[in-house]
């Protein structure tokens, strides 16, 4: 099955049937809970026992928000799918729910939110589902409004399934332009199934935040894959690695040259991606074969 993002807009894809299927799968519940716990950990909220006001962006049926409630935090959830929110109501989640499109920006006052998580949702912004949609403009509206509503020094941790490098770069660029500092933390980078990428963003001067936390399993430590092997669930949440389409290649007449390739590879390495080593073969010209 193709990625959900390629099938239909989110408010159509997550209809009543899909919303129920999503929220009754014990595997999905478990996976989303694990990711949310990790995201909360990466938010790095001071351990002072004070509950905070947080956002859950693309909160869906409330699986991710539940982790916030379990940790005593109050939260406001944004989602574009009425069906997902209906399931959240049924499940009596503790956060407040808003039917809203994050690509239109979050309508919140400046400087009032202590942190934000988003689990398996923001990759949807990379797709133009209507003729009026421009992904870059929607990313800008989203990150700009997110930056404004957070208190200085607050973090946003966004776990996402991007389809390719272009998308993650596009998302990162939009976040940086909005003023965020930060980068990508990748957990279990060596595992196709367990690999999870988190954008860890800090609002305000980057001087207060020293370095990006380390991804889990970077040293080859593995996590058990067997509990994430149901194809049906993967289709719904978006664990796509096995079906990932071939990378689209840009066709340029001259090519970009070795220096450019080395620079890009380095950038990617710095962002925490696994990049093949630089060798004498890197970016070398290929003969034309006819």
């Amino acid at each position: 099955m193709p990625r959900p993002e390629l099938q239909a807009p989110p408010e159509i894809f997550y209809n009543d049937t899909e919303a129920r299927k999503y929220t009754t799968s014990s595997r999905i519940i478990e996976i989303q809970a694990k990711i949310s716990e990790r995201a909360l950990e990466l938010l790095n909220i001071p351990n002072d026992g004070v509950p905070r006001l947080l956002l859950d962006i693309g909160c869906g049926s409330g699986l991710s928000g539940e982790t916030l409630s379990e940790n005593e935090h109050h939260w406001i959830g944004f989602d574009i799918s009425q069906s997902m929110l209906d399931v959240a109501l049924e499940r009596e989640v503790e956060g407040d729910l808003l039917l809203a499109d994050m690509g239109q920006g979050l309508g919140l006052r400046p400087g009032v939110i202590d942190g934000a998580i988003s689990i398996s949702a923001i990759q949807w912004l990379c797709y133009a589902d209507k003729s009026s949609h421009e992904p870059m403009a929607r990313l800008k509206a989203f990150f700009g409004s997110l930056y404004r509503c957070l208190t200085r020094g607050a973090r946003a941790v966004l776990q996402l399934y991007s389809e390719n490098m272009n998308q993650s770069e596009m998302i990162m660029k939009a976040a940086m332009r909005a003023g965020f500092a930060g980068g990508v933390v990748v957990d279990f980078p060596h595992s196709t199934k367990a690999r999870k990428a988190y954008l860890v963003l800090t609002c305000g001067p980057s001087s207060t935040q020293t370095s990006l936390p380390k991804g889990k399993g970077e040293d080859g430590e593995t996590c058990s894959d067997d509990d994430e092997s149901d194809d049906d669930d993967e289709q719904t949440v978006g664990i796509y690695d096995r079906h990932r389409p071939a990378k689209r290649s840009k066709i340029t007449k001259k090519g970009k040259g070795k220096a450019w390739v080395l620079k890009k590879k380095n950038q990617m390495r710095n962002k925490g991606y696994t990049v093949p080593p630089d060798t004498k073969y890197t970016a070398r010209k290929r003969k034309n074969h006819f």
Partner: protein
Amino acid sequence: MRLLTHNMLSCNIKGVKNGYPLRLEAEKWTEKEVDFNAKFLRGIFPKIDWPALVGSARSFGFNDLLPDEAPDSSLLASDDDLLRRFHHALLEIHVEEGGLVCPETGRRFPINKGIPNLLLHEDEV
């Protein structure tokens, strides 16, 4: 939706300068008990727009729940009764049906089953 959330919401229709506070039209609301947590209340207090909170509580007929003037934060440390009223206003009143009205444009965002519909029309983005 609780008044805590209402207090943070601001209209983001393109071009709107004064989108705060959204006027609350409550047709149906309920009260639900929520665990009292003084630490949370003291932490959130500086971020609350007091006049907006008082105004929205009044729209439910809670005329004397909160003082007109924002109390001094030191009072929140000593006055337990005040803290409990603040708790009740912020977390225990849930708007179920009604609407939110942008003060500048008059655009109404409906609230159904406790969920405000904040989706903008294409010409509002």
